[in-house]
């Protein structure tokens, strides 16, 4: 079974973003970028499926600027067999990404597509569900456990209030939650070897999407800062302030 894994290049999760002075967007110039943490979990799960003999080939896909090839090289170093890069310098909506992925699904015919549950930049949490809709596949979102059996994948999902297990007919779309696995690190020899693995790069214009931009970004602001608070010296003082100053007890 072939597994298609989505990978997004995003700001490193430790970096505090800055809003541009003209409020047009956040400023990402000279910012450290990395693979979206949920995508790392998706790649790791694909690797484990291959190690268990469930997956035969892993194809990593990224849609984004030329620099997104760095993240594809990381996926290749970790063990993906080949990569597809769809180059687009513009900001894309989740639906546009899902449309491109749907085309690649039609072309590659994977048994499973694994994506992260959300990207830590847009915080949308939409692409996997949209891809499932466009391809008519079942969806197993926020997965914390996967088990592929005959023609089916059992997915345990993290839901409000606990865990819920579904069985999906293959092919299916899975989105990863944090506790699905602990991603491994790429080893130096594998990073060197990954340089020889193929990346098929194409322009997004070859996908013939409708006019881009479903949503218009009008303005980006910094959220209102909280008033700096004070430190209290004792439990007595804390309880007194909560009762009489903040009046929340």
């Amino acid at each position, binding site marked *: 079974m072939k597994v298609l894994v989505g990978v997004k290049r995003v700001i490193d999760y430790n970096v505090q973003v800055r809003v541009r002075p003209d409020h047009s967007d956040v400023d990402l110039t000279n910012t450290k970028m990395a693979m979206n943490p949920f995508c790392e979990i998706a790649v790791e799960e694909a690797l484990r499926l291959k190690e268990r003999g469930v997956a035969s080939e892993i194809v990593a896909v990224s849609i984004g600027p030329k620099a997104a090839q760095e993240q594809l090289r990381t996926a290749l170093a970790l063990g993906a067999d080949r990569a597809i890069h769809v180059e687009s310098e513009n900001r894309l909506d*989740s639906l546009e990404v899902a449309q491109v992925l749907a085309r690649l699904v039609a072309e590659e015919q994977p048994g499973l597509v694994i994506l992260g549950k959300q990207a830590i930049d847009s*915080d949308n949490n939409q692409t996997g569900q949209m891809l499932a*809709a466009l391809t008519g*596949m079942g969806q197993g979102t926020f997965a914390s456990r996967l088990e592929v059996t005959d023609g089916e994948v059992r997915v345990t999902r993290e839901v409000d209030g606990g865990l819920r297990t579904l069985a999906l007919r293959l092919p299916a779309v899975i989105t990863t939650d*944090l506790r699905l696995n602990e991603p491994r690190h790429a080893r130096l020899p594998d990073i060197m070897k990954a340089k020889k693995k193929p990346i098929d790069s194409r322009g997004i214009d070859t996908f013939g999407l409708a006019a881009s931009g*479903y949503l218009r970004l009008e303005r980006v602001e910094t*959220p209102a800062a909280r008033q700096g608070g*004070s430190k209290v010296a004792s439990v007595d003082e804390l309880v007194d302030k*909560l009762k009489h100053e903040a009046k929340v007890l």
Partner: protein
Amino acid sequence: MSILILAEQHDGELAAGTAHVVAAARAIGGDIDVLVAGEGVDAVAQAAAGLDGVSRVRVADDAVYAHQLAEPLAELLVALADDYTHVLAASSTTGKNVLPRLAALRDVAQISDILEVVGADTFKRPIYAGNAIATVRSSDPLKVITVRTTAFDAVADGGSAAIEPVSAEVSNPSSRFVGEELAQSDRPELGSAKIVISGGRGMGSGDNFKLLDGIADKLGAAIGASRAAVDAGFVPNDMQVGQTGKIVAPELYIAVGISGAIQHLAGMKDSKVIVAINKDEDAPIFQVADYGLVGDLFEILPALEQKL
């Protein structure tokens, strides 16, 4: 404008989040219908009909909707969407699962986790773990939106909407429900509790979370946790507060042994009053805390419980 809200339900009861989504719908304006889909949902429909501002409750009672699976719910919403300009749901695991599927089937965008209604087509939403607020405008004929429930006050009860059945031929060959494990708790639900007390890695072990129980009981508070505490296996993941867990905005949030990483702050920094208890006086949590207490939580927590 005509708005359809997908009702949120748990264990045959209307979930608290729906009343907050109705408030967001009222800010948009227009007729508001609520869709209750499930199996044996009379009580949910009655509760939804009582929410202020709701004009009609549409009920799809069928085994195919029994477990709120995304595939049949999205198909049902597609069948109903022609009557509406907006479809809304809470930004819960159900809303986040179903609405993007509807949006793609209708070839429109989905707007996630709105904090504010600027106009009927313009909304504010957080990006980058809440470190920036984006204003986005949709020119789609149908706006598909999930609502951050903590950003809108719940509407009151007192309405008496009409309840009407809907019929739609919906099948679901691609997924089926296998089972669930729900965490049992007598405490208020984390997302809607007025007071939340959370523990982090500084708690040291799962057993030490018992130190929070007595305080939570006295305050009627829910107990939460940071991702570090969940990843360390101290507590189950449905207690996690943060960008990747639950977003809370209670009147009082007490963070115990939590350093205050970006991902945690994203889940609680809109709380009205924040208290931090931490032995490291340089912990970033103190920058957002209204009241900070530096010290050993193993001494402070029993003392705090005694004083309440």
